[in-house]
């Protein structure tokens, strides 16, 4: 009976509103944060940063953004790749136009630019619903990719058509460019990721979150009880765009260092992030992390087992990896249709009762 809630009483409503109502959960959470901020940067190497942790954190931010829109507000979007591209190109333009301003501000600025673009592409949601909207957001995806490819202004007219992030430092520590240390890369992503999760959690537990969820669960009833669908949906698009834009900016500037829109922000990205939130759990911030971890870490683990331990040919492992990831997705859905987050909740509930299940 290590994990339980008996005796954990709340004496005020704001205590009752906590993200982690159980003391044990809170301790685990703060411990994780402490390890993530204080221990990991000391031991991280290039491989762990570039291959696993940084992409995981960046995808988690994108997943938070999409989850706000899809998981909380019920508007399925397949434009995430395009919106990440907006973040990336906005960040690039800001970085090169204002080299003296801090890169951190550029990343946030990229978030705001994406917010605006995403809101504009959110306008059709007032008329179009469900899968129709999902497919409609593909229009944004394809159009944005085409635009960034077509108009040379976006890539500063350079001959290659690629954008590459020049070196930018904060307190003398490079955060972008080839000389970025693994820990710096990791810390900046971690900071943005934790901040995003914090903001997203606050928004979704407050009145705005309830507006979104009301629209998601039953839009007509929501409107009749006083939720303005216009502002609710557009605010979801806006905030979703903000986070997705930040993730796109980080993806380009900190992680990849160079990007081409079609290759880095193609339709695959849109699907990938959507898969993350569905596998992780719609309408759950924890699910964003679980889903991102599943789709970033699992392939690496499978490759590690197949290639490095079993010594199989890499292409064979790559094929098997698809089979296994696909199989696992179906298996999880059959076992727990509401994603890893729900699986986790069910496990915790069982754990609370353990060892006396009845």
């Amino acid at each position, binding site marked *: 009976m290590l994990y339980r809630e008996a005796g954990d009483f709340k004496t005020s409503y704001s205590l009752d509103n906590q993200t982690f109502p159980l003391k044990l959960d809170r301790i685990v959470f703060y411990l994780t944060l402490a390890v993530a901020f204080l221990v990991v940067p000391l031991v991280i190497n290039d491989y762990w940063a*570039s291959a696993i942790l940084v992409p995981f954190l960046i995808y988690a931010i994108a997943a938070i953004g999409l989850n706000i829109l899809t998981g909380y507000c019920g508007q399925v979007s397949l434009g995430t790749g395009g919106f990440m591209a907006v973040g990336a190109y906005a960040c690039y333009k800001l970085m090169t136009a204002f080299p003296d301003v801090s890169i951190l501000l550029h990343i946030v600025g990229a978030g705001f630019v994406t917010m605006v673009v995403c809101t504009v592409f959110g306008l059709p949601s007032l008329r179009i619903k469900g899968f129709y909207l999902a497919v409609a957001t593909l229009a944004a995806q394809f159009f944005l990719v*085409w635009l960034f*490819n077509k108009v040379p202004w976006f890539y500063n007219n350079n*001959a290659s058509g690629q954008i590459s992030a020049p070196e930018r430092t904060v307190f003398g520590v490079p955060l972008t460019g080839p000389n970025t240390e693994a820990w710096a890369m990791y810390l900046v992503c971690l900071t943005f990721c934790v901040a995003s999760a914090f903001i997203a959690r606050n928004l979704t537990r407050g009145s705005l979150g309830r507006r979104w969820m009301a629209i998601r669960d039953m839009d007509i009833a929501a409107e009749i009880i006083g939720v303005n669908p216009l502002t609710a949906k557009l605010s979801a698009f806006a905030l979703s765009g903000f986070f997705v834009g930040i993730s796109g900016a980080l993806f380009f500037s900190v*992680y990849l260092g*160079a990007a*081409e829109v079609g290759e880095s922000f193609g339709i695959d990205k849109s699907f990938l992030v959507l898969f993350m939130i569905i596998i992780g759990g719609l309408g759950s911030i924890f699910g964003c992390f679980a889903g991102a971890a599943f789709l970033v870490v699992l392939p690496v683990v499978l490759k*590690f087992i197949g290639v490095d331990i079993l010594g199989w040919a890499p*292409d064979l492992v790559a094929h098997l990896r698809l089979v296994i990831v696909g199989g696992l997705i179906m298996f999880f859905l059959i076992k727990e249709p509401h994603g890893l987050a729900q699986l986790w909740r069910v496990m915790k509930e069982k754990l609370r009762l353990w060892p006396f299940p009845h």
Partner: protein
Amino acid sequence: MKLHTLLTGAVMASLVAAPAAADLVLPDLSYRTGPYAAGGIPFSDGYQDYFSLLNARDGGIGGEPVRIVECETGYNTEKGVECYESTKGEGALVYQPLSTGITYQLIPKAEADGIPIHTMGYGRTAVKNGEVFNWAFNFPANYWDAASVIVNYLKDENDGDLNGKNIALVYHNSAYGKEPIPTLESLAESEGFTLDLLAVDHPGQEQTSQWLQIRRSRPDYVLMWGWGVMNQVAIQEAANIRYPMENFIGNWWAGAEHDVTPAGAGANGYKSLNMTKVASDFPVLDDIKTMVHDEGNAAGDGSNVGSVLYIRGMYAAMLAAESIAKAQEIHGESDITPAMMRDGMEALEITEARMAELGMSGIGPEFSVSCENHGGPGMGVMQQWDASSGTWTSLTGFMDSDTSVTDPLVVAASKAYADENGVTAACL
């Protein structure tokens, strides 16, 4: 809990991976899956088979065995980064990313890590300027050379005069596809031909409108900068509109067997540029068959030997092997480091005598690399597809590009990169 043990295992493995064994580590960032697998497989087979041959026949290079570390990228930039990070700790000598996207990412990273990158006929063209890109090489030729070589070839065809001719460029609507445009535009001005640009969006499965337009405007020549499914569809569509195939010229990534075979007899006469000669009778190929394939050490299923991209992969491996030998010679050490490898690449000299000695006489041009010129001679061969025999035949010898056109472009592009990234141009 199983996952946990596995992850712990992974942690351990990546921590202990650093001390490299005493051999020459050559990563192969291959893609045998995904949209471009058909191109990735033969290249990777050729690249690996050549090193396997060196191991089997000569016991490696300079007595040092070669270890290939294959890593599957699927042509995906993030997986490419993962592959780079997971292999660089093993003492990787040179990277051959075989993808424009991955190349762009790796150039600055490898520069910072001090590991050479060799992008043979792809990637960032400006790396020809070795004073700005100390660690990146793109010999023997780049896209701008390719565009210029093709125009030179067409000039020869037309008795030196392209005035009033109309040339259409069908290109993959990406950074890669747009590479030749500045060169061609500049050549159009100096040579007096008109240039039509026809973009094809990724993946290029659907090209009806582009080819209907070509049918309407009937350009004298159609050039193609394509990759993947775009090539097969374009060649089929050209055959469909009965465009004269001998006036349809692809670049060297649009001129492999799998690009033309789906169109069957319709593809007969299609031309493409190549950076190597293609022949199935290079003696080295027999060695590979007997000493590698028959021993069961083939990298793939062994079916690609002698194909265009196989030979290109093998050629890339040969250039790497020669660079290693050069580095060993310069530094007097057999177990070289990436930094020594760079010196070897920069001092590389390929002569016909050496190529003949290696059993691949005339496979490439004679050239030497220097600090100022990481790009080699910029020459190419025009080849033509014969559908009945299913072979590519070289039509020309190695043709020159017009350096008076391409060099200023290289200088401008590398300067722009240097300015943007605060690089001071200098030799190491």
